[in-house]
């Protein structure tokens, strides 16, 4: 593997000098090996998901046949998932929680990120540092007191309680990303607005917000993914079936219908549709946004 690392990047350089046939042969072989490795990696990444989708299209009788492709494609598992497993409710709950969390936390993180980046007030650095240190605190530390807090607020078993917890947990990181985004914008823009007599709110709303779109896309993706995929809090704080979100529901369905693989894989497939749809529409922001976020962290 070590022979073809950078060959491609410098190939122009190499081949222009020596037109040696042996070199070219070697180059061809390493390229072939490279393609092989990449193809295998792609298969490794896609195969489980492909298997999942194909299994969900199978007839229940065919579950254990060992056939990779369904002998005849049927959507009966999907019917079962909606009629018997009640996945529509869980889906709706997850969507409500996720969209509310994203809207609230993106709005608040943008406001505070802007303030930390561009407004001057005393104690700013200290408050910022305190908010930042909590990025290290694992959910495991907070889960017991949060459970008690929601119990005292009579918000256990409710979607609203979940939304509050998710907003609180996600805000510091989103604020941090928005702050560095606003810092990358020229400060003169705000000053120009001030000179023209715009209010601070006006500057934020009419000048900064439109420019902050790429940053907002990034934190939207982070929050959407984090909330949609979150498991431990929602599994602990909500047990009433009518208010369950998708992830804990999938987990308990796995126990209930452990042998009905077409139905289970259909449920899993449905559960990833919103996030995959978001990924396909915002693919570049996904990769650049998530990695940029990680590097800043």
């Amino acid at each position, binding site marked *: 593997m070590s022979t073809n690392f950078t060959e491609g990047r410098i190939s122009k350089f190499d081949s222009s000098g020596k037109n040696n046939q042996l070199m070219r042969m070697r180059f061809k072989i390493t390229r072939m090996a490279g393609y092989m490795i990449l193809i295998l990696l792609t298969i490794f990444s896609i195969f489980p998901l492909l298997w999942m989708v194909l299994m969900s299209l199978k007839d229940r009788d065919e579950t254990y046949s060992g056939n990779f492709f369904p002998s005849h494609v049927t959507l009966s598992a999907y019917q079962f998932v909606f009629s018997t497993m009640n996945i529509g409710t869980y889906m709706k709950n997850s969507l409500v929680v996720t969209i509310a969390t994203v809207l609230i936390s993106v709005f608040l993180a943008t406001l505070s990120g802007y303030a930390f980046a561009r407004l001057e007030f005393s104690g700013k650095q200290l408050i910022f540092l305190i908010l930042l240190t909590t990025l290290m605190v694992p959910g495991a530390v907070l889960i017991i007191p949060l459970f008690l807090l929601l119990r005292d607020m009579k918000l256990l078993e409710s979607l609203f309680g979940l939304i509050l917890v998710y907003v609180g947990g996600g805000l510091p990181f989103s604020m941090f990303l928005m702050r560095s985004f606003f810092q990358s914008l020229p400060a003169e823009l705000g000053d120009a607005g001030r000179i023209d007599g715009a209010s601070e709110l006006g500057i934020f709303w009419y000048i900064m917000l439109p420019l902050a779109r790429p940053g907002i896309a990034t934190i939207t993706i982070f929050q959407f993914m984090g909330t949609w995929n979150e498991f*431990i809090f929602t599994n602990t704080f909500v047990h009433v079936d009518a208010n369950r979100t998708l*992830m804990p529901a999938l987990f308990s369905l796995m126990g209930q219908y452990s042998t009905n693989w077409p139905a289970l894989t259909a449920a899993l497939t449905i559960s990833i549709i919103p996030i995959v749809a978001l990924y396909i529409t915002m693919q570049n922001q996904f990769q650049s946004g998530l990695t940029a976020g990680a590097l800043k962290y």
Partner: protein
Amino acid sequence: MKSSVIPDLSARKQRQPFHMTERRRRALYGYLFILPTVLFFLVFVAYPFFQAIGISLTTWHGFDKQIFVGLKNFKSLFSDPLFWLSLKNTLIFTLITTGLQTILPLLIAVLLIARWRGEVVVRTIMFLPVIISMVVVGLLWHMIYDGNFGVLNNALTFLGLGSLTHAWLADPHTVMGSIIIVSLWASLGFYVVIFFAGLQGIPVELYEVASIDGANTWQKLTHITVPLLWPVTTVVMILNIIGGIKVFDVIYVMSSGGPDHASEVLGTYLYATAFSNQAGDIASLGYAAAIGFVILILCVIGTVIQLQITGGRADVY
């Protein structure tokens, strides 16, 4: 525009006090803008955090009276064999995933950057598992690993390796390794993309100059790529270390720490201690909170050691 600038500035110069109130007004907006964030933080992060410290110093089952016991919970951890087992498993999981999920993505990224047809497709597909919840990933692989009808065993039989078929998650010897593979599958694309972005930042000229000087591919890797990627590598390792120490979802849904605690990690042990529904076991919140702080302390230690070893580059954070 120019005409509006000049009178405004002159007005400011004349009336100095107005400038002060202007500054104060901006500060007021600053506080106003951060207020909701700070409030959310205080109620849902800071207050629970300090409460967790309090709980960890008590004996409490959630319904009875809290009894202050000082550091007793932390002392009890030392003589708890299950705690030590969970700690050992957590460290093993963290060590192996950090190793695999740093070296493999680095090599793949180095390979991937060498201009391939369809490189974007490969990256897109490899990134797909990254966006999927660990719960879904865990449940999916649970079926793949199934001892009787799992596709992995089917594949092994098909390849003539029928003797290797296994109830992967039910065997204490294979459960950890199986889960680690799942972790690798789910995160590979993420770290590849991070390294890929880092590699794009290395000027091609460096490799060209090295070629002129007669450096071979291996030398270019060890003398250019690895040193210049060091800051990115540090970040990847820290993310891996913290992720490994905090691991919960994937293990909880795949094995719940079993069989016979073979895959018990600190996260699952904490959860079982705090929210156990098993008959006979009563939840012990003080003890669970203490485990939570062990997780926190390990995260801090892991990060500090990592920064020490790699000579912490503060500029990447």
